[in-house]
């Protein structure tokens, strides 16, 4: 087992952890960010900005609850609008965390140990933001519990043949599993914080959360089994969530939705935007908190490669949509293609092609993959591109379907924009707090990356 962690001599890639670290320096460096580092003016200033943005959400939702969805730009051909665009965008972003923690754990990609914790946190916050939209979009969010099957006096049950009901199960399961996966990953680190905290209240709070973890060998043994099994079941789950989201579209008959390529194309797009968000957050965080030792250029470069690969799958999806528009011979499908390129929303489609296919191709060059500034910018462009993709899928497909008597246009209102900006604020507020109250890098998993952590089986023979 020890062999798979030895780095071959010929490997000239930057290391996963910079040399010179020991168990205690890792513990100290990461836990001090939470326990010792004073709160800076910059942190407070940034927090005020993102917190105000979050309050835009409260305002927009408050007004929505009073007036109803009429305050949004949605209308009859375009009944979905921003609510679903943003829902799909946020859910997509939420894919990177569990992908990194589950799939890469199964593949024994040990470099993921430095980025899984905050990617998982990002997943949780993104899924929480996503969840707001369909709830608000139901029109009467106080009755949203009707979506769940429970015995009721109306003798009424959800329709399990509807993709919208599947979505409720997929998203709520995804949130729950991501939460418990994140939490059990945190337990040993919470114990570390408990044992290092000096303030009795801090000690008590972390002690309560750590549930008395003491690092017993038996506990670790069961812990590792549980973690591995969670990774195993979370792997198909990650792939299923966006698949189910894509069914919301693919099961409908609207041109631009009714295609079998949607599930893989959505999943690839989700991972694409998820890694873009990981990079957008990791690049500033590693610089601000001085953790370049743990989140090295190697991590950034690998993430850039994942982005490039999934971006090409997404490009294939666009290509296939265009091909089917022509090859199907269906006038509605070929009109859809024409409408994307020449219709009233052509700016959005052309920007989408630039953001998602054109610009990210520079990642073929190592220069861009290892330059933090460029990488941040490209990731941001990808996030914009993926948002546009959802806009194209939802709005452009709906606004001109079969009958031109029912064509329409969609213009988002200020409430749409406020809700969207508000969820970004909520997401950033949660991240802002997270980096200061929980260890943003998994301490115990980083310890296992040090060569001292590996025990040679020969030792038991020599006794």
């Amino acid at each position: 087992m020890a062999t798979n962690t030895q780095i071959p001599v010929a490997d000239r890639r930057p290391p996963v952890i910079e040399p010179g670290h020991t168990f205690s320096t890792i513990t100290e460096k990461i836990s001090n960010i939470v326990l010792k580092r004073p709160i800076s003016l910059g942190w407070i200033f940034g927090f005020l900005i993102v917190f105000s943005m979050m309050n835009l959400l409260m305002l927009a939702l408050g007004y929505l609850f009073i007036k109803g969805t009429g305050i949004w730009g949605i209308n009859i051909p375009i009944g979905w609008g921003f609510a679903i665009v943003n829902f799909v965008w946020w859910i997509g972003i939420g894919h990177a965390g569990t992908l990194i923690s589950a799939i890469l754990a199964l593949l024994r990609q040990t470099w993921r140990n430095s980025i899984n914790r905050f990617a998982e946190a990002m997943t949780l916050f993104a899924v929480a933001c996503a969840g707001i939209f369909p709830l608000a979009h139901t029109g009467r969010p106080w009755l949203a519990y009707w979506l769940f099957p429970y015995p009721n006096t109306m003798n009424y049950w959800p329709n399990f043949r509807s993709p919208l009901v599947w979505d409720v199960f997929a998203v709520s399961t995804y949130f729950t599993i991501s939460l418990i996966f994140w939490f059990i990953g945190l337990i040993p680190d919470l114990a570390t914080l408990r044992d290092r905290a000096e303030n009795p209240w801090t000690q008590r709070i972390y002690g309560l959360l750590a549930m008395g973890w003491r690092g017993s060998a038996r506990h670790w043994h069961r812990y590792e089994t549980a973690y591995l099994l969670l990774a195993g079941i979370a792997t198909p789950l990650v792939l299923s969530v966006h698949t189910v989201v894509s069914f919301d579209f693919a099961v409908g008959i609207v041109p631009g939705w009714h295609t079998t390529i949607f599930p893989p194309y959505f999943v690839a797009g989700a991972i694409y935007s998820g890694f873009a968000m990981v990079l957008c957050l990791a690049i500033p965080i590693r610089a601000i908190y001085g953790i370049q030792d743990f989140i090295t250029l190697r991590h950034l470069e690998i993430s850039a490669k994942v982005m490039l690969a999934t971006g090409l799958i997404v490009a294939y999806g666009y290509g296939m949509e265009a091909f089917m528009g022509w090859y199907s011979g269906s006038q509605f499908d070929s009109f859809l293609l024409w409408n994307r390129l020449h219709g009233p929303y052509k700016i959005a489609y052309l920007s989408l092609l630039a953001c998602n296919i054109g610009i990210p191709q520079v990642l073929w060059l190592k220069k861009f993959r290892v330059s933090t500034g460029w990488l941040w910018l490209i990731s941001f462009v990808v996030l914009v591109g993926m948002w546009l993709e959802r806009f194209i899928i939802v709005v452009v497909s709906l606004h001109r379907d079969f009958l031109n008597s029912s064509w329409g246009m969609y213009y988002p209102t200020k409430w749409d924009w406020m809700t969207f900006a508000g969820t970004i604020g909520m997401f950033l507020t949660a991240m802002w707090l997270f980096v200061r109250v929980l260890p943003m890098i998994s301490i115990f998993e980083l310890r296992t990356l040090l060569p001292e952590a590996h025990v040679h089986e020969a030792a038991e023979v020599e006794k």
Partner: protein
Amino acid sequence: MSESPVYGLMAEFDSAQDLVTAAHKTHEAGYQKIDAYSPFPIEGLAEATGFHKNRVALVVLIGGLIGGLSAYGLQYWVATITYPVNVGGRPLHSWPSFIIVTFELTILFAGLSAVIGMLALNGLPMPYHPVFNVPEFRKATDNKFFLVVFSTDPKYDAAATRSFLQGLAPRMIAEVPS
């Protein structure tokens, strides 16, 4: 010293390798009730202390099966018995559309069983434990490695066990008050 109840004897080690070697030797010397503590999972350590029964996987399997069966059962019951809706004469038991919720609930129940099962089998949450009484034990979540022989072990003897542990060259030995 008066006869105060003792939970066990604790030995501290510097490296993971030392701890595994010490655990092996202690187990082979005939001690049954021992435990080892480390700041990260160590391959083979639990086995070295004589721990082999790990039932987490079984709990997860049972949880997953319950989740899947109850999800399918619920959908079958709703769609065909209690709330049948005729959509264009299609079959009420339209099983392909029940697969997704069945899948999701299998995952959900299996995942919850993994976490709750792991915690329950480990006896957590347990905020107080005698090993926390040893001040050096704080380092068990940082960079030190510990071995404890419990006083309930039939072979336990305050003096003999102490001198046995001394032979393993630990950094220090401490009595764990109960």
